């Protein structure tokens, strides 16, 4: 064992140039893998974040349309007690109607939020524009930024609201306390936001009632399992739950496409590393056949001779992986430091995941050792007599 390792080491050292070239080859493979992997994972996180990062990922509702969920505080408490994948949870009400000031009328979406928890999903407070304040009493509202222009409004203006729901109050007077830039045209031109009580009051419903309970998850890809678990532990037949996956099938397909292409790239990198190493080692077996013949004549067993080449593969893989990681990390560093947008954030979002990097290294190491398998078998089959005779 030790002898095979020492011979492998000596063989590699005696052909330094060749050794360095193979190590560089493996290193480039590993660094490409680390870089592409981090890039694709970063792109995915970025895509998930921009698409569903500011919306509900699981939404509870009454399974009959236009009916409300009763006693929502209990439901939220139940979910908080039993589910581990919940990042934030909040009751919300969504309705629609017309907002009027002077002669102007505008169809809008009216949303009632419990701001303390809703901010974690919708980040409304971060999106307030100058001089706006969060509503802190009833009948105060925030408006999407575009409504400011269409209705020609300013802070502290009074507006009137008529809900489409026949059982709702009519001509409710509301005070504008601010404007929100949701960064989405649709929301900026239609959303009116108040606190939950105001909405409940307009709709004439109980303060224990809500239309939806919205959640964001720690692991968004576990949404379906979390939904099933929520429904099971709630055990309320009139409540239904919808996940982001059902609402964003295109996104999911896109993410899966990326994952598959990432996997393909990695597989091809591994294949080229394996082919490279095994072909070079196969040549080495030929180059060293004289030495193998001598060692066998002196009594090294066939498996001992094979081990020499397995060790060569292992040593090459080890140094290749280490160099590859260093190279890959410097590549990531260069990219995230120098390829930045005007505000200093990286052009390409990178997700540097140490366990992924370690896995890439491990794969390279295993692949290199396995790549040495066929040369190793070849060397074990090499006959002494051929070598001795042919001088």
């Amino acid at each position, binding site marked *: 064992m030790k*002898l095979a390792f020492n011979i492998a080491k*000596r*063989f590699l050292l*005696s052909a330094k140039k060749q050794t360095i070239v193979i190590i560089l080859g493996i290193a480039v493979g590993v660094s490409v893998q680390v870089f592409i992997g981090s890039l694709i994972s970063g792109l995915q996180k970025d895509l998930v974040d921009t698409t569903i990062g500011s919306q509900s990922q699981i939404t509870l509702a009454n399974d009959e349309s236009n009916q409300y969920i009763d006693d929502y505080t209990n439901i939220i408490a139940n979910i908080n007690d039993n589910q581990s994948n919940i990042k934030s949870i909040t009751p919300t009400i969504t309705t629609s109607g017309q907002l009027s000031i002077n002669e102007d009328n505008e169809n809008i979406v009216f949303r009632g939020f419990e701001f303390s928890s809703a901010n974690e999903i919708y980040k409304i407070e971060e999106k307030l524009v100058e001089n706006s304040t969060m509503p802190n009493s009833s009948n105060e509202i925030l408006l999407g930024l575009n409504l400011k222009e269409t209705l020609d409004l300013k802070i502290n203006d009074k507006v009137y609201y008529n809900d489409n729901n026949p059982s709702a109050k009519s001509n409710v007077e509301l005070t504008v306390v601010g404007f929100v830039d949701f960064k989405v045209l649709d929301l900026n031109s239609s959303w009116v936001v108040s606190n939950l009580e105001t909405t409940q009051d307009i709709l004439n419903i109980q303060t224990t009632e809500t239309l939806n309970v919205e959640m964001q998850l720690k692991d968004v890809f576990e949404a379906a399992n979390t939904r099933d678990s929520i429904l099971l532990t709630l055990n309320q037949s009139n409540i239904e739950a919808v996940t982001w996956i059902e609402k964003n099938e295109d996104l999911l397909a896109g993410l899966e496409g990326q994952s598959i292409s990432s996997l393909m790239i990695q597989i091809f990198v591994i294949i080229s590393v394996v082919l490279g190493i095994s072909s070079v080692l196969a040549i080495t077996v030929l180059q060293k056949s004289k030495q193998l013949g001598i*060692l066998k*004549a*002196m*009594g090294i067993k*066939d498996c001992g001779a094979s081990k020499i080449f397995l060790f060569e593969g292992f040593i090459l893989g080890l140094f290749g992986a280490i160099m590859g990681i260093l190279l890959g990390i410097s590549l990531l560093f260069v990219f995230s430091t120098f390829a930045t947008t005007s505000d200093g954030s990286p052009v390409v979002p990178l997700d540097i995941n140490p366990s992924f990097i370690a896995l890439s290294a491990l794969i390279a190491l295993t692949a290199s050792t396995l790549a040495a398998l066929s040369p190793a078998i070849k060397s074990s089959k090499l006959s002494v007599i051929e070598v001795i005779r042919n*001088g």
Partner: protein
Amino acid sequence: MDNILELKNIDKIYGVNTKNPYQALSNINLIFKKNSFNSIIGQSGSGKSTLLNIIGTLDSPTKGEVIFNNQDISKYTKDELAIFRNKSIGFIFQFHYLLPEFSAIENVLMPYKISNSKVNQDIINRAHELLEIVGLEKYKNQLANNLSGGQQQRVAIARSLINSPNIVLADEPTGNLDSDSTEAVYNLLREINKNNNTSFIIITHDRKIAEKTDRIIELKDGEVYTDIEK
């Protein structure tokens, strides 16, 4: 038991399953005594190397038995043969065959390292002693590649002796040495034979050298032609 090696009815046919098989050895029967100093001579192509390789278990006979110290080694597995070669046989090949990546002393120690994971001081001392006997103590740390042909041959002799084998097989060990060096190498082998109780079988085409051995076996067309013992 006074015999180290017995060959019984050895045939060697190359290319048995081909159109034109070639019988390199036919019906060889030989007995070698312990501590004997033997030579094999014969024309080129007479089967000398074939015979020596069969004795050294590097090749197997088509027919017949090779009996070493009363053990029929033709029944050994490949691994058992490897261990046997390591412990009992020392090889000196015609073309030196050192490991060029290793130094002289590392080459000498190699057969020992193959069967022992630890190298102790005793064996290192022995390696130095052997290098001194062949007159290369000064060159022990030189890479084999950087030694002259004659020096390499002498390292190979030291290497063949490190595991104190029962028998040393040498195929034209002085094949490409000048006559002075050839003389020196033979005197060395002879000395080791006397002092270490090691048997030698040496192939040579140099009759002058063969004359100095205890027994001359001459092969002709794969058969024992003459067998003269002094």
